[in-house]
């Protein structure tokens, strides 16, 4: 079953076609990779999916429903969540608070429940706390729960962003270079974790990644962007053999360390 469908989605900044008529279908439960050289339009495509930008052309469907004009806030409520390439944590708050905020859309108690400290208040706060602690433990951040988010290492901050996406039991999460800035063993651990999360939470994941080896080993389906155009899509082995991809991305003068 198709969960996300983009129909010739485009956006133009001045004269620059950052995303140009990209069509894409992502199946429920898939681990989908989006790759492409610097400036190919990957992050911009994410911004279109999450409603940060309105497309100049094209349509977007989620779970059978058109969401082209649905605002960012509501897309989170529908079950789409994302991380940011340039980490956007609530830096002045603690690790735990960062996770708890992400549960807010699942809470319903009112200002007066807060004021009266009603049982609804206590119940939902506990639910949020338990959920946060479970995820923090899974990502081995539970011991840092009272640290300021800005005090975490780079890799830990990226993990916390993923935790934030998971707090609301989303259907689809979009990860923008989740392993950027991590060393090899950290990256390997993270990839195992992403796979585990997908299986345990029955999620669909769309992942942007620079580390080619990593995407090849992890994703079941890969799409390649170049200069805003989708130039290829298929299984990892198919994509890596595609001559257009090799030219655009895996060219011999590229230092991404990928053998073809």
């Amino acid at each position, binding site marked *: 079953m198709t969960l996300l469908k983009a129909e010739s989605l485009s956006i133009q900044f001045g004269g620059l076609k950052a995303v140009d008529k990209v069509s894409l279908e992502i199946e429920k439960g898939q681990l989908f990779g989006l790759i492409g050289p610097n400036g190919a339009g990957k992050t911009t495509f994410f911004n279109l999916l999450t409603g*940060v930008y309105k497309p100049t052309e094209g349509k977007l469907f989620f779970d059978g429903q058109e969401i082209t004009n649905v605002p960012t806030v509501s897309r*989170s409520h529908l079950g789409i969540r994302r991380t940011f390439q340039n980490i956007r944590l609530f830096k002045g708050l603690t690790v735990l608070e960062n996770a708890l905020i992400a549960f807010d859309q699942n809470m319903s108690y009112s200002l007066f429940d807060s004021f009266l400290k009603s049982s609804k208040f206590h119940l939902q706060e506990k639910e949020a706390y338990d959920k946060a602690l479970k995820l923090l433990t899974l990502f081995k951040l539970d011991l840092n729960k009272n640290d300021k988010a800005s005090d975490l290492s780079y890799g830990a901050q990226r993990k916390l962003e993923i935790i934030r996406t998971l707090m609301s039991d989303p259907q689809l999460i979009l990860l923008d270079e989740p392993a950027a800035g991590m060393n090899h063993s950290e990256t390997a651990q993270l990839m195992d974790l992403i796979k585990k999360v997908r299986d345990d939470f029955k999620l669909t994941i769309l992942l942007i990644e620079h580390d080619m080896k990593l995407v090849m080993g992890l994703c079941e389906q890969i799409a390649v962007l170049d200069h805003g155009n989708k130039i290829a899509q298929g299984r990892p082995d198919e994509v890596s053999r595609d001559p257009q991809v090799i030219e655009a991305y895996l060219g011999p003068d590229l230092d991404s360390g990928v053998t073809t």
Partner: protein
Amino acid sequence: MKNFKLPLLTYIVLLVLGLILQFSFNAYIQILILQILMYSIASMSLNLVNGFTGQFSLGHAGFMAVGAYTSAFLSQTFPAFLETTHLFGFFIFSLIAGLIASFFGYLVGLPSLRLKGDYLAIVTLGFGEILRVFLLNIEPLGAARGISGIIPYPELGFLDRFWVSFAYVSFWFLVCLVFLWRITRGRYGRQFMSVREDEVAALSLGLSTTQIKVSSFVIASFFAGVAGSLYAHLISIITPTVFGFMMSVNIVVMVVLGGMGSFSGSIIAAAFMTVMPEVLRSLQSVTGIDLRMILFSLSLILIMIFKPHGLLGEHELPYFLKKMRRKKV
């Protein structure tokens, strides 16, 4: 009720304290104490907007003016109601004052909270000025003369006017403190802070940042209106100029001085900002020259140099008490 044990206990202690104050201090000090409580309400509520939500409002005195004029106008129009209902009537007036101020907060906040930083400061400042000029020209509200002879809080038997005023003002002080304290420790506190920390991230997590900013603004305006209502009946005379730009700045200074995000800091700063000019005034009679404003400004500058995040930073008083106790052990 069991969730209000501590506030109730605190209130009883305050009532007894009021008795002690009634017999041990003169009227001059008594009115200072009442003002501290009133300004604490104003600064704590502004802290919700400027400290927790990270918006820069410079028009808090405007919302106090709305509350003060509402309460004064009601009491001039329905004096008989206050006579028969005593404090309950005052309570109703304060409540209406707060609600009308929060309505103004909504009107000002909805369009302007889409603006960021300095722009919001300018719009809120503009609101305060427009309101002042408006009040200066409305004859039924006294125009430049303002409203005088506003009915003060009553005496009750052997409890004099100060005690009744103190009991009433501390009631609102506690309501404001407990309300703000509790709503900022839970999902709403996290919502406010998420807007302060990163609006783009907040949106991506399904939080309606505009709605959050407006609610923070509306809540703050409500308590500003209540503070204004208290002011009217404590001082008995209000004019448009009292609630001008300087008062807004003073309240912002209280918030910054006490610490953004620290309600107890706001209370301490409100006390400092109210008492300090008076202390310096008595110094003037000794030295013969008016050093008041110079020393006052100097003390503010020194505090901001040595405590750039305000007296308490983002922490509350209990945090420091706990830390001190831990050190002793």
